């Protein structure tokens, strides 16, 4: 399991003549690596993730997974969204089994694999439950099991925990990073949450916007599972913050070759990356 992801000179605009959303994105994500894409709203990080998933084609450049260009979605590189989007007419078990059914797996195989996955995400006793009766965290766990069912090489997370309460979020972040580490799955997470980035990443890609570019890369060399209370954690967090602020300043002052943004919009409306600083 696990596969290398190549991002080859990706530049994207939605229409010819429209503003550039992504510019010259170039990176190589190693097999089994856990990477976090972090940036302010509108920096194109989610767009980039959709491209890796094959849900969107870049205007220029390409995404390669395990050496092959991505041109369509596949159960081998699976995406989880902010909303779990479970199918309410299926119980927990059938939701998890769906990808296997699509792939034409046999009944016995489905039963065995689903039972194992529900064990893994701690929902073995809810197999027959109506998904609508589950809590938000449990629903996201079902979505995780559903994504893992097809034994993906790559798992892509689009802010999948942002709608959850802080405790559930923290435990799921650890769990997902742990599971992907154990199974050797390459994990790419999009977030605007600095703690989430340090908690889940081997490497953080910091994205700036207008147009979206990878402005900095930060390696997080902490042991797993991570302890948000540790001094090392806080230090990495500060490093990421500083890196982020530099990126922002760089964007505010401009370097002549870039489009300058008006000062009023320099501080983002939601200020997302900084929001959790005071709580930390």
């Amino acid at each position: 399991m696990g596969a290398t992801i190549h991002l080859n000179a990706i530049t994207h605009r939605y229409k010819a003549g429209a503003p550039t959303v992504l510019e010259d994105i170039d990176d190589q994500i190693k097999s089994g690596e856990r990477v976090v894409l972090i940036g302010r709203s509108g920096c194109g990080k989610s767009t980039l993730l959709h491209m890796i998933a094959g849900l969107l084609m870049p205007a220029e450049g390409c995404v390669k997974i395990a050496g092959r260009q991505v041109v369509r979605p596949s159960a081998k590189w699976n995406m989880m969204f902010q909303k779990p989007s479970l199918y309410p007419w299926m119980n927990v078990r059938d939701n998890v089994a769906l990808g296997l059914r699509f792939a034409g797996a046999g009944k016995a195989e489905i039963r065995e694999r689903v039972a194992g996955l529900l064990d893994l995400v701690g929902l073995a006793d809810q197999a027959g439950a109506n998904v609508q009766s589950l809590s938000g965290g449990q629903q996201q766990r079902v979505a995780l099991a559903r994504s893992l069912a097809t034994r993906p090489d790559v798992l892509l997370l689009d802010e999948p925990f942002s709608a959850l309460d802080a405790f559930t979020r923290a435990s799921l972040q650890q769990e997902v990073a742990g599971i992907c580490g154990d199974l050797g799955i390459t994990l790419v997470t999009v977030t605007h949450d600095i703690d989430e980035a340090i908690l889940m990443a081997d490497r953080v890609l910091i994205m700036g916007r207008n147009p979206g570019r990878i402005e900095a890369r930060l390696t997080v060399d902490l042991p797993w599972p991570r302890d948000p209370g540790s001094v090392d954690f806080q230090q990495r967090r500060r490093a990421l913050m500083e890196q982020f602020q530099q990126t922002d300043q760089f964007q505010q002052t401009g370097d002549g070759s870039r489009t300058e943004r008006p000062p009023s919009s320099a501080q983002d409306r939601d200020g997302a990356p900084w929001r959790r600083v005071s709580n930390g």
Partner: protein
Amino acid sequence: MNTLASRARPTAPAWPALWRRAAPLAWPLGGIAVMLFVWWLGGLYLAGNPDTLMFASFAPGPTFAALWRMLGEAALWDAIGASLYRIGAGLFWGALIGIPLGIVIGYFSLAMRMANLPFQFLRMISPLAWMPLAVLIFDTWDGAIVFLILMASLWPIVFSTAHGVKRIDPGWFKVARNLGADSLQMLRRVILPAVMMDMMAGIRLAVGVAWVVLVPAEYLGVTSGLGYAINDARDTLDYAALTAVVLVIGVIGFALDSLCVMLMRRFNWQLEG
């Protein structure tokens, strides 16, 4: 005084409790009683006037007597069978054409934009207006009536299904595509179960319209069915039998609607409350 009150207390709450349990049934039964009373008054009025005396058997008494007699005869059951066959066949074709059409219109916004105006226009044409055309096209009266039922049931099914498809959570499509669903699997595992409820709601509306259209359609030409039975009773001046058939039409219509409601509950995946 004290002892009396304490002795009476245990039995006192029995009445409200009994009432609570009976009330849900009592109100509808009361409504039916009012309807029967008004009907009976009407019969009394007809009987009291020499000009309308001949129609007095429209009243509840003669009607129920006639109904009781007819329930033992094959003719009524044949008429019910013929009518149910026609409505069944018409609804079958209506669903067979309407559901796929509704899915296409709901899924592709271009199809929706193209179809909306002509379909809204066609929808407003009384199904009975197609009668002369239906008679020309179909060899048999049965075929023509089934066609009219089809025309009556098509639009509610098309619009309900399309509406349901349009409301499907886009996330469900995205996740299914991500999990490797092909078009057929998407249809079977996502679209159809997601819109099942809306489809059933459309079929319920269709049953209502179709059942209403069936009777006048059976006034024309055919020699079987409940509509024909009404016409036949009128021609033979058997007004009690006429009202009995009207009663049967009402009861069957109510039963068909209840069946639809039951099916809607069966396919409802939304958690109550």
